[in-house]
């Protein structure tokens, strides 16, 4: 498909006009023609004219003149450079003479077009036509007015006096600045409909107990500072406007409106009902009553490349009705994204446009594109604080917390408040600092966040009421402490704290869930990952890319192969713009341990339903990473025909002196041919291990240009070889090449500003020949990454096609932000207008767009497939294949493709497949639309006699019946379709959850129970599992869920099930915690059970307490009373109080009303009489875990990391994890030197391994390496460390519930003799010496202790020996130093 053409971007300069005999009129004549030329050109479908509002008219030497748009400007100058104009054009006009159009291109090319003619209007039209023709652009849709010189002069004479007069009396218009109250209300406004975006209050809405926030209108209105009165102008233009003759009337009106800034839209529309700016003003004026998209479309039709209306092409959140009439006129999501892109393309330097566009991109789930755009805006407008604010807010949307904090700090340093409060602080500075505070909070730096926010709002509470309220929440709500404790712990490298913190508060957004999942794995709790993901990811909907990627790696690490593989595919295929190749490759590494059958089954399912395209793409991951993939016929079939041959990459574009070239060449040569199967895994691993080291052969971190060049070369080697390898039989070497390509490109991206164009081109040159042979989808994904990593769009000023001109395939396929926008716009237009052969064009274009973006354009692609199938231009199998790809990519976002696919499948007689595709995709449909579409499926549905009804009521009823009849499998089948049918129906979810639970399908049950029963999901699930006789599963759910239990009833349920499972440790723990929370919550049976278990485990003291409680509670009920006596007797036996025990046991035996208890009571009596004490064995731990995890939990990272050479890979992984912990001194260090060294050692130690725990070690080592050198999301900088003690103190102080005992206080300082007979014997002496050495000059300090140099040296050596011999000496010194 040939590349689509972008609009030709031009700027129009003020013409050079000569009027013989009337020189005084020349300036205004030039202005008039300038406006007229813009008016004419902006109607052209391919001309993006820089609109006159962007070069406003200011007085200059007594006349108005457009700012920057005068002759002498160039497309690369300071003003136009950032506007990305392809050409500047201007007219030269001599009255009664030649008219000439001059052009100046971006490359400096100058050209002129002359015309002779009967009048200037005709001549202008001629030169414009010549110019457009020379540029390959079509003719003007409306001709330039055939105005004569006389007519021109007549108009100028009318407007010139007024313009000159106004130019002289001109005053700067006042720019409206929002008040602080405005900012408070609007800035950072959390969107209540989305989770996780509530940037000021990340926990908002999660606590039903939290006091309701005061409504904005309830607050006393803050006194707003008086606004600067606008400069009032008399309505001076209108009288003249009414006298204007028809020729050039429109241009003259526009000129008057632009210069005098008087509203003349009514007159303009009279002159031309389709004048775009005037129409747009009408649109804006009526926007309050709802966007008039018909009007907006008129504006766009009138000026197809004018930026502003495109930025309005979005449907608001509340506009969700799906009436057909509305739908026809409302923009689709594709149109909205395309519009955003076109707006940015046409006005790339305009900050307000860019901000709006970035918001639209974020709404369409591509915040990374928004960030990119805003980074460009910040580079263009570094001094504009609003650009920084917009950028920080957009980075917030990417869920990259490290990047957010870094950007917030960077922007804060430039535009934040001065450090000293004595300096004036402005609202924008406060805004920035509030964002910094939020960013601090999001990485867990609670105290600093509060301090910063409080400092900035101090004395401003009245004007920033909402933000003040947020501050109060931060200060008071215990959940913030837990949340920050967890996050700070995680980012600091202390996963135990993350797990602990998230035991006090539930994960509430994608990042929380990712943190929680990773921390569970790090702490050896892999078995809980699947529950956590089911509950929060699939159930609570925290399934954004960050969480999903974490789920993929954690599920794979936990050995949940199929689930992990599914999540991996989902995130890698639907989120290509995030460029997560490095993280995905690590997942691939984990996948390498999976049994091949798992992948075969997954691929087989795709192939079986005819989703060959998907299968081929998915099989690539399997082929790259699973060592035995080459032996699998299923994988081979899915991969399709492979006809490549091994070839060396074309690296001729790189200079001979490219840094580290020799070493990199040698490294890749050492890998050898991929066709050689021997030792392939080890060779692959060695390549991954060593590439980064060899990049540094002739480069260093101090020399980013060299590093970028070397990394670029390594990327070229790896990517070209990888793409070639995708055409060859499967080998793990391909996975290694892919890993290296991803990592090297990430390193290039890190230093992209230092990368030279030549090297960027050389990398593209290496990829070009292999791109043609590789699978298109894979090629598209890597090409997108290349474009972003090399910053091709920024590098080429938007002219990517020009930059890659020498590489035809790349030029045809590469999509930068502007190319994507043009492609999206083309698809949207073709799809909406449906000209002849639209389907074929849309099919090709939409497929390219969808594969590039991961989802955008899939609806249109599916529509085109259906149209092509109907026209018999595509066969059924191919249609099904493409439709299933569309369905997969938009699952959960759009139901259109799934309905299309179901229809085609039904027509093909494949009922079960149709049901499957609808089950997966229908949930995204709106109600009315769904019913209409399903009605069209009724006939074939009936014909194929599918056993699932196509009506919700019937579905629900049959499902209920199936459950009642004990047929959970049937209930599951019906339930799955019913929740797709009505995803908001809690009852359906609940029943489906129960059906799964009855079958023991815990992970499948959890999401539906969460949606159906919310907070009670885990209790219900464990209960059903228990009832179904699946006790281990029930206990696993309870173990996992009980971390959030803070009510006695929850623990009592847990205790009851544990008791039934005869699991004493858990029973004791559960009842003890329930008792701690509420002793009164126990009923007699629970007290009875608790006391019994306490006796069994030998806790007689507590048993006595509980037995007494039971006796008291029993009252006159002999059954419980006798049980109580019996338990008390047992307790006394254990405590050696036999006489009392005998008495109680006798009473119990005597008054026992229950035959079942006879034996038991008699045994007790016998034991009491014979004074038999049994010594129960100590309670086994609830969970058997390696001691290294306990070290991590205890915060003993030194001891944990010392186990790095343990025989167990699992222990070694925990040891490696321990090296990541950053002490306070390492707050600003991304990765500790310990972690770097250990990671490198681990990589070396894991070459060729396939054992899961060993591979997990390797994956962790690769993660550490990524964070150290080319992190996509850098590790956040840390601040004050929240210790466990501080956390619990603060948490309790805020009213948080903490179960268990308080931590013991730190040991006090104890003085002692350490160096007997030395000049300084005692710790206190040594501490004094250290204090003096700091406080005084060194010589003076040692003299205080009667020491000279030699004596001091002796003292030091003696103490050094003592410290080395006894680790407690250092602790004693530390305690002494800490004592003030």
């Amino acid at each position, binding site marked *: 498909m040939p590349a689509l053409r972008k609009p030709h971007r031009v700027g129009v300069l003020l013409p050079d006009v000569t009027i013989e005999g009337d020189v005084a009129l020349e300036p205004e004549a030039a202005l008039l023609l300038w406006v007229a030329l813009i008016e004419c050109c902006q109607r052209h479908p391919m001309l993006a004219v820089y609109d006159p509002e962007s070069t406003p008219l200011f*007085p200059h030497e007594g006349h108005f003149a457009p700012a920057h748009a005068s002759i002498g400007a160039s497309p690369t100058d300071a003003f136009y450079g950032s506007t990305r104009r392809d050409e500047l054009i201007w007219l030269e006009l001599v009255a009664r003479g030649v008219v000439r159009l001059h052009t100046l291109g971006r490359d400096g090319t100058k050209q002129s077009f002359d015309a002779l003619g009967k009048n200037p209007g005709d001549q202008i039209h001629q030169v414009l036509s010549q110019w457009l023709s020379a540029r390959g652009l079509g003719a003007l849709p409306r001709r330039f007015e055939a105005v004569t010189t006389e007519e021109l002069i007549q108009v100028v004479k009318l407007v010139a006096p007024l313009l000159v007069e106004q130019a002289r009396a001109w005053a700067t218009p006042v720019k409206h600045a929002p008040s602080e109250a405005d900012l408070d209300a609007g800035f950072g406004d959390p969107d209540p409909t989305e989770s996780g975006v509530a940037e000021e209050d990340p926990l908002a809405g999660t606590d039903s107990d939290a006091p309701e926030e005061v409504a904005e209108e309830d607050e006393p209105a803050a006194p707003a500072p008086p606004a600067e009165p606008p400069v009032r102008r008399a309505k001076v233009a209108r009288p003249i406007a009414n006298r204007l003759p028809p020729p050039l009337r429109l241009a003259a009106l526009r000129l008057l409106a632009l210069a005098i800034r008087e509203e003349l839209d009514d007159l303009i529309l009279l002159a031309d009902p389709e004048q775009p700016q005037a129409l747009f003003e009408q649109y804006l004026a009526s926007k309050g009553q709802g966007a008039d998209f018909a009007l907006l479309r008129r504006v766009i039709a009138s000026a197809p490349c004018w930026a502003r209306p495109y930025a309005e092409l979005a449907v608001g959140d509340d506009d969700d009705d799906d009436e057909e009439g509305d739908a026809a006129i409302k923009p689709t999501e594709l149109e909205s994204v395309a519009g955003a892109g076109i707006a940015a393309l046409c006005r790339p330097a305009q900050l307000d446009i860019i901000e709006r566009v970035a918001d639209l991109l974020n709404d369409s789930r591509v915040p990374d594109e928004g960030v990119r755009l805003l980074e460009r805006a910040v580079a263009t407008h570094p001094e504009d604080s609003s650009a920084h604010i917009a950028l920080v807010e957009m980075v917030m949307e990417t869920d990259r917390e490290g990047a957010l904090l870094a950007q917030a700090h960077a922007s804060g340093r430039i535009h934040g408040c001065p450090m000293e409060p004595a300096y004036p602080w402005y609202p924008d500075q406060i805004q920035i600092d509030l964002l910094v505070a939020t960013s601090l909070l999001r990485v867990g730096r609670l105290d600093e966040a509060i301090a910063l926010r409080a400092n900035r709002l101090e004395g401003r509470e009245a004007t920033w009421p909402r933000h003040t309220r947020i501050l109060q929440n931060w200060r008071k709500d215990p959940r913030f402490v837990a949340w920050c404790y967890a996050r700070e712990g995680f980012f600091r490298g202390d996963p135990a704290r993350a797990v602990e913190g998230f035991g006090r508060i539930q994960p509430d957004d994608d990042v929380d869930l990712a943190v929680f999942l990773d921390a569970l794995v790090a702490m050896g709790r892999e078995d809980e990952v699947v529950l956590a993901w089911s509950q929060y990811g699939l159930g609570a909907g925290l399934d954004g890319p960050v969480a999903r990627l974490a789920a993929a790696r954690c599920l794979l690490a936990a050995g949940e192969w199929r689930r992990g593989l599914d999540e991996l595919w989902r995130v890698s295929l639907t989120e290509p713009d995030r460029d997560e190749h490095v993280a995905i490759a690590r997942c691939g590494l984990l996948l390498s341990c999976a049994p091949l059958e798992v992948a075969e089954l997954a691929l087989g399912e795709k192939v079986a339903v005819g989703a060959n395209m998907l299968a081929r793409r998915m099989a690539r991951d399997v082929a790259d990473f699973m060592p035995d993939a080459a032996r699998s016929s299923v994988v081979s079939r899915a991969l399709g025909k492979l006809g490549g041959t091994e070839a060396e990459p074309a690296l001729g574009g790189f200079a001979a002196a490219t840094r580290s070239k020799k070493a990199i060449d040698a490294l890749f040569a050492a890998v050898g041919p991929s066709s050689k199967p021997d030792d392939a895994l080890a060779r692959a691993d060695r390549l991954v291990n060593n590439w980064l080291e060899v990049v540094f*052969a002739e480069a260093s971190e101090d020399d980013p240009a060299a590093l970028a060049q070397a990394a670029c070369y390594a990327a070229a080697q790896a990517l070209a070889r990888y793409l070639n390898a995708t055409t060859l039989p499967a080998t793990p070497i391909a996975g290694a090449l892919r890993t290296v390509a991803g990592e090297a490109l990430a390193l290039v991206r890190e230093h992209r500003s230092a990368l030279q164009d030549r090297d960027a081109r050389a990398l593209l040159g290496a990829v070009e020949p292999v791109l043609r042979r590789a699978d298109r989808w894979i090629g598209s994904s890597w090409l997108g990454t290349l474009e972003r990593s090399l910053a091709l769009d920024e590098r080429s000023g938007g002219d990517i096609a020009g930059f890659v001109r020498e590489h035809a395939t790349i030029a045809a396929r590469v999509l930068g932000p502007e190319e994507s926008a043009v492609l999206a716009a083309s698809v949207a237009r073709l799809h909406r207008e449906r000209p002849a052969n639209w389907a074929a064009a849309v099919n090709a274009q939409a497929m390219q767009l969808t594969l590039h973006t991961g989802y955008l354009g899939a609806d249109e692609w599916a529509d085109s497939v259906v149209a092509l199938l109907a026209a018999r231009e595509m066969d059924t199998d191919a249609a099904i294949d493409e439709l299933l790809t569309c369905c997969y990519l938009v699952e959960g976002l759009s139901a259109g493709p799934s309905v299309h696919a179901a229809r085609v499948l039904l027509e093909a007689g494949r009922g079960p497949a149709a049901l499957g595709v609808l089950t997966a995709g229908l949930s995204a449909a709106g109600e009315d639309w769904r019913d209409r579409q399903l009605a069209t499926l009724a006939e074939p549905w009936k014909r194929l006699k599918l056993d699932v009804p196509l009506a919700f009521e019937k579905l629900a009823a049959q499902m209920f019946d199936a459950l009642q009849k004990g047929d959970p499998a049937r209930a599951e089948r019906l339930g799955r379709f019913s929740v797709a049918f009505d995803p908001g129906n809690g009852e359906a979810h609940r029943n489906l959850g129960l059906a799964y639970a009855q079958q023991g399908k815990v992970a499948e049950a959890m999401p539906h129970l969460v949606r159906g029963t919310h907070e009670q999901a885990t209790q219900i699930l464990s209960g059903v599992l228990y009832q179904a006789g699946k006790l281990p599963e029930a206990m696993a759910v309870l173990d996992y869920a009980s971390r959030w239990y803070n009510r006695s009833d929850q623990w009592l349920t847990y205790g009851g099930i544990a008791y039934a499972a005869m699991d004493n440790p858990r029973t004791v723990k559960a009842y003890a915690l329930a008792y701690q929370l509420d002793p009164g919550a126990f009923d007699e049976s629970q007290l009875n059970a608790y006391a019994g278990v306490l006796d069994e485990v030998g806790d007689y003291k507590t048993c006595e307490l509980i037995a007494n409680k039971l006796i008291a509670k029993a009252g006159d009920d002999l059954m419980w009373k006798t049980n109580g006596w019996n338990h008390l007797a047992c307790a006394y036996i254990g405590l050696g109080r036999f006489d009392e025990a005998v008495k109680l046991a006798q009473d119990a035996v005597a008054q026992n009303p229950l035959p079942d208890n006879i034996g038991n009571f008699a045994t007790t009596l016998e034991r009491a009489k014979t004074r038999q004490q049994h010594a129960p064995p100590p309670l086994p731990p609830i969970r058997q875990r390696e001691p290294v995890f306990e070290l991590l939990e205890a915060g003993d990272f030194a001891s944990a990391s010392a186990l790095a050479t343990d025989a167990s890979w699992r222990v070694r992984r925990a040891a490696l994890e321990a090296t990541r912990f950053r002490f306070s001194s390492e707050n600003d260090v991304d990765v500790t030197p310990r972690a770097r060294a250990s990671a490198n050692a681990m990589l070396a130690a894991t070459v060729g391994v396939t054992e899961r725990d060993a591979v997990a070690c390797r994956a962790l080592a690769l993660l550490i390496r990524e964070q150290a050198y080319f992190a996509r999301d850098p590790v956040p900088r840390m601040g004050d460390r929240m210790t466990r003690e501080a956390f619990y103190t603060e948490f309790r102080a805020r009213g948080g519930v903490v179960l268990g005992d308080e931590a013991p206080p730190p040991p006090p300082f104890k003085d002692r003799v350490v160096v007997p007979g030395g000049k300084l014997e005692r710790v206190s002496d040594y501490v004094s010496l250290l204090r003096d050495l700091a406080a005084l000059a060194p010589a003076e300090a040692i003299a205080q202790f009667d020491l000279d140099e030699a004596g001091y040296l002796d003292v030091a*050596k003696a103490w050094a020996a003592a410290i080395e011999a006894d680790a407690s000496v250092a602790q004693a010194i530390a305690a002494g130093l800490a004592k003030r």
Partner: protein
Amino acid sequence: MLALMSGPPSLGELGAIPPAVRYQTQSALALLPTDGSVLDGVPLERLARAMDDGEAWVGAAPELAEIGYWMIEPSHSVELRRRGCIWLTRFPSVETAKRLGTLVLDPATPEPVREQATWTLGYRQVRSMHPSTQWPADAVQIADEALAKLADAATIAGKITSEQLPHALRHVSSEMIAAIIAKAPGLWGDAIEAFATPPLARVLFVSIADIPAQHRTRVLRLIGATLGEEAVPLLVSRAAEAPIDERLEMLFLAISLGGEQHLGRLEDTLAGMKFADLLRQRAKWHLANRGVVPTVRGLKVARTTALMPAVERAARCRQAADDLGTLTKFIRHPEAYLYAMWAWMVRGAADPVRARELVAAHPESQKLVRDLYLEDLARRGRVKQLTVAAQTLKAADLGALQLAIHGRPLAALELAATARLHTPELVCARALACYRAGRPDLTARILSEDLPPSEITDDSALPAFPGPHEQWLIQHAPAHSPAIGALAGGLPGVLALARPAPDDAEADLPSIEPTFAVVRRLGRGLPGSTVYLAGEFKYMNKDAIAKAVEAAGARLVNGPFPGTDYYVHGDWCLVQTIAQLERQGARRIRRGELEGV
């Protein structure tokens, strides 16, 4: 033709500049294309680096201007010529002005070259150039004339096509230029800043409406500073009509120049305004400093530091720094570049206290005054703030040294442990901190076994510390790097840096843990470490050494990767590789430490 193809002139002895700078410059020049081909890739990068690293020194050797003259020859590529113009910024002289003047006026000169030459002709600031850099009066006149011709042409054309010309003109105090600007003040708004003649100031005032809005505050201040009391009636009469920002500026100027009789008008304007108190304080300041327009006064110095004798600079920079900071107490500077100018004045004044004031008003400026700011924090015992700033500014070594000097040795060692490079400052910090942390034994070992690498001064080998470069610095510029001098002076030298901790300093770390990192480093244990075999191994048996490395429990790495612990010097190795390794903190495996070495 022969001349066209010749290489750069030879450098000669160049005793006035440090040997490493000499070597670096020489190496970079040797790579430059002499055939007019494009300057890019490694040669460009090396040249850029040499120019940056040598900026503070090369001005001491005026003969190096010849290199610039050679670089700007028309036979060379555009980029090389442009770099030549930048090079010549360090060598203001009559000859330089003449050559650049010719260049800018030659229509055949490519635009990038002309732009850079224009800037060089106007640039009258010393900033970080060698203190001996000073424009002779004749050179100033020649440069001004050339700039005036450019300006005149632009005025006639009615369009400024050069981005650099207006900014270059901001440095120029010349009646000629003033007259040209007066012809089209609206055109030259960007060029008007610190210098104007009274006639120009009067023209500017009457045509203030023609000046684009973003330049007006600057222009108003210049009018006030130039005309003094004469401007007051004009300012007052115009103020009523002007937008709020300009109105306030006019009224403050009126108060500054005309006294308290204008306070009433200001009060009327301030009614209900948000920052009224601050603005009243500003008025008070103006009344106390009658006739002073501080930003203009400050800029006059900032723009011309290369015109004044070196001995006067520090004092004038101090005053200028105060001038440029004054108004920020009441209002932020409307143009961000003023903070940069302020920062350069603080650097010129070399005053840590002024650095603190600058950073307090504009945190981003800490980048420019890094060393002074860290020193100020250490002097005041602000341990935590210093640690954060040092990390942010990528100066853990400097921060650690300051902490060690000012009596916070344990914090110094902790910060030092995070430093990426093995610099003299880092080594000095460790040595001093260990001494003050009760471990003089470690200090002695650092000074004998763990000195920093010397700078490269030739291609043969990396000399032992202190090498020729360091010795040159000790001899000629001892203040440039006190750490080098201290290390060369041994233990007494290092201890001489020490100062008592300030009384109100934050406490030091309560743990001697940071000393253990030094113990470990000096322990030279191979097990678990990484080793790089550097260079070519012709006579030494590389395989045997590799085996010995593995037998010792260490691991070989494939490149001089950051974090590599040791290296084995091959039979031959690029001196740059060894320097890189040493700078990253890798230590050479000594004879006898490993079999085969």
